[in-house]
């Protein structure tokens, strides 16, 4: 079971450690700054944190001592002439880095490799641990990109990057809003693979167009990589063939709307979601924060609430706000109202952190 958590918040990065069985704040890095994401690199233990400094832009920082000291890295940059479309008739705009929305590490035999997904929709690769970044132009240049559009933001963005555990050249990225894209050759070529998804927010004739699917989050089972799970803007989807075809899981109480999803690292049939009232409200159904769990591939779901608030709760969990550890027993949940809960038994029972944190954007085990 992991004993360290990285909690990225609107007011800094909190490093939590388990002390005598209970989680506690061990360190607060970048106090006051908007830390949007943190990656723990299993290859060397380093932490890479993404900061959105507002006035001064998006930054990346790296720590090799558990967050005690930090070194600023380069950030992904767009070139003169790179344009972003929003797909709904607004004129194209010059592409500038808005946000690092996803960070993933390469595998052991790619020692310097990092991937960064960004708003406004570019995927970037580093082979020197973030000292420099290259736009993956083969994906940027797909003609379909010009019909991607923003979900919660003004521009499209890449929030999920799955590096296949069997072959690190096989990549899948999910885009809000642009479906799922797959490369089998380390990013040299790409193809759309959101077939089978349904977009209830589009005109009927466009509802099944893969390029218009608003994937909120995509995760891949480590031990059974053919199984992927997606929390989508209007539903839950599962793939059993490596993300080529997707099947909708319908009628999941209390709601199929949400942002986050986690999959068990060794059991592909076990997945967790955090439901909310659909798009125009984005609050827990009946003001009751619950986690839904399936243990049979989506045939049935349980609502888990033991240890979650019994009183009215308006906590929303963003797409990177639900984490699972390497054993599959540890779960952590961080909310927009600063609540943080952990579970040691796959969500059967939740324990609240004894702290009122700033709004939580992302949680990750380290």
């Amino acid at each position, binding site marked *: 079971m992991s004993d360290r958590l990285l909690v990225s918040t609107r007011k800094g990065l909190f490093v939590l450690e388990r002390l005598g069985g209970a989680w506690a704040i061990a360190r607060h890095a970048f106090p006051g700054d908007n830390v949007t994401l943190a990656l723990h690199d299993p290859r060397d233990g380093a932490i890479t944190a993404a900061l959105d400094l*507002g*006035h*001064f*832009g998006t*930054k990346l920082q790296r720590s090799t001592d558990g967050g005690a000291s930090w070194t*600023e890295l380069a950030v992904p*940059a*767009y070139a*003169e002439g790179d344009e972003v479309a929003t797909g709904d008739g607004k004129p194209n705009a010059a592409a*500038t880095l808005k946000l690092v929305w996803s960070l993933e590490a390469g595998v052991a035999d790619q020692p310097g490799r990092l991937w960064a997904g960004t708003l406004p929709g570019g995927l970037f690769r580093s082979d020197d641990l973030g000292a420099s970044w290259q736009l993956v132009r083969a994906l940027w240049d797909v003609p379909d990109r010009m019909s991607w559009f923003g979900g919660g933001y003004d521009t499209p963005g890449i929030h999920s990057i799955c590096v296949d555990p069997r072959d690190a050249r096989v990549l899948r990225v999910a885009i809000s809003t642009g479906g799922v894209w797959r490369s089998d050759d380390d990013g040299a070529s790409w193809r759309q693979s959101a077939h089978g998804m349904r977009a209830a927010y589009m005109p009927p004739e466009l509802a099944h167009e893969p390029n218009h699917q608003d994937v909120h989050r995509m995760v891949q089972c480590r031990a059974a990589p053919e199984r992927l799970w997606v929390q989508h803007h209007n539903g839950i989807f599962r793939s059993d063939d490596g993300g080529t075809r997707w099947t909708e899981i319908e009628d999941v109480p209390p709601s199929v709307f949400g942002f986050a999803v986690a999959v068990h690292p060794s059991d592909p049939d076990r997945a967790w979601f955090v439901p909310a009232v659909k798009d125009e409200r984005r609050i827990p159904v009946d003001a009751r924060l619950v986690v839904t769990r399936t243990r049979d591939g989506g045939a049935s779901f349980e609502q888990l609430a033991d240890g979650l608030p019994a009183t009215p709760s308006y906590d929303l969990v963003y797409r990177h706000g639900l984490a699972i550890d390497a054993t599959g027993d540890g779960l952590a949940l961080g909310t927009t109202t600063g609540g943080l809960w952990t579970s040691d038994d796959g969500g059967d029972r939740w324990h609240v952190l004894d702290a009122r944190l700033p709004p939580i954007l992302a949680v990750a085990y380290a």
Partner: protein
Amino acid sequence: MPRMLLASQLARWLPPDPARPEGAVQLEVGGHTVGAALESLFATHPNLRGYVLDEHGGVRHHVAIFVDGRSIRRKDRLDDPLGDDAEIHVLQALSGG
């Protein structure tokens, strides 16, 4: 030489220096235009480039630059001239309330 004043929000991202007091920082810079003065700043403090300018070389949307009390004319050109005693303020723009 022109003087550049960096607001404290920006100055805190300078490399740590125990001798430097907290808060706004004043530096002497070279150059006869705002762009040249910024290049002079970045020559000494390269990490600040990405805080003041975006990747296309324009002043960031929410960063403001004033020369002798007047806002620069074009955030994408930086060709405002500087006198020898010019005072350049680089600060976060107030927007959004």
